């Protein structure tokens, strides 16, 4: 069986072939590293396969692929208590599963967590099964008062670092939302 690195490289190659930008992924990783993030827990989404591969292959990060989104939240919350900067990267659908865990762990104990998600369900999303994200994602985020920012273009990628630091400042969850065209390097 191929090792983790080879598997990650194969995934990155596929992501590039399907139109996702390795350069944007690298810019996201650079901003995360500069912000002090060293642990990244991920769950996949087609749109962020390249970004996940970048974290896996970058020695500045301890990348941990997890079994479900709630585990990413648990892992990053524990990491906070060791003084380790962390981020959870996942699809929009993953965030939709996290309301209970965020409110129970992060709100009860006031533990900050920073989450990056895809902006699924937008007009440029060809997947019909993401319609629900288009309809409800922002409403769900707002329903538990999570500050979030949509990274509208490459020159706004530094806002990812600001969103991370904001989570530490307010001891709550914050979210950076990554549009498809950003991840493709088109905006």
């Amino acid at each position: 069986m191929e090792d983790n690195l080879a598997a990650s490289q194969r995934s990155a190659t596929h992501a590039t072939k399907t139109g996702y930008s390795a350069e944007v992924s690298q810019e996201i990783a650079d901003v995360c590293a500069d912000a002090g993030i060293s642990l990244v827990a991920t769950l996949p989404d087609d749109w962020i396969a390249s970004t996940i591969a970048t974290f896996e292959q970058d020695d500045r990060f301890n990348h941990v692929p997890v079994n479900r989104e709630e585990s990413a939240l648990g892992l990053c919350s524990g990491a906070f208590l060791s003084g380790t900067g962390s981020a959870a990267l996942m699809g929009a659908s993953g965030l939709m599963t996290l309301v209970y865990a965020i409110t129970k762990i992060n709100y009860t104990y006031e533990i900050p967590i920073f989450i990056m998600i895809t902006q699924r369900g937008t007009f440029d999303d060809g997947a019909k099964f993401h319609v629900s994200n288009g309809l409800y994602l922002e409403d769900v985020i707002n329903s538990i008062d999570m500050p979030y920012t949509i990274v509208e273009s490459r020159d706004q990628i530094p806002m990812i670092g600001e969103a991370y630091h904001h989570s530490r400042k307010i001891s709550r969850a914050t979210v950076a939302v990554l549009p498809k065209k950003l991840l493709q390097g088109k905006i």
Partner: protein
Amino acid sequence: MKYDEAVAYIASRWTDELVITSAGTSSEIWYAETGDTERVFYLEASMSLSSVFACGLAEGVPDKPVWVFSGDGAFCMNPGMLQVERQMNLPNLTHFMVSNRVYGSTSNVPLPGRIDNDYPAIARGFGIERVYSFGSMNELTATFDEAVMEEGHTFIHLEVDPMDYRGASPPMDGPEVKFRFGRYVEKATGKQVFSAPLDNG
């Protein structure tokens, strides 16, 4: 094996390990046994996430042993927690999974697959190498040093009887648990957890 006797024995062997307890009974019994409010994170809102929470902690403090408790109710909700543990393979992490075949914190409602769940086999199936299973106090006490005090990521299955325990939660709100534990980690490890440093002067 009696749940409270097993926890009391483990607490009696506790030295400098950081401890994470999970929802309900393990938090209540550990607090009743130790009264500690500094070196334990009582993750009462854990809902199957105590062991991955402990992974995040243990990864950042590699010189500090970390003990974490979970129950088989949590395990049934999230057995993939062991995939994450195996992936990280943290030598300073010991996971005590207390199995009583019921959701003990919610009136002992029976678990799915109750009798047939073979937790040590599941752990080995995920590739975990150091797996122990204790069904009696004699087994636990006789093998504790090998299972717990030796280094290496370890999964320990404790088979206990259901009990009707309903103790008090540790008398702290969430932020107090966070600050007490986090400040202890800072003092014990030198790592900075909070943005405002503790003034020890």
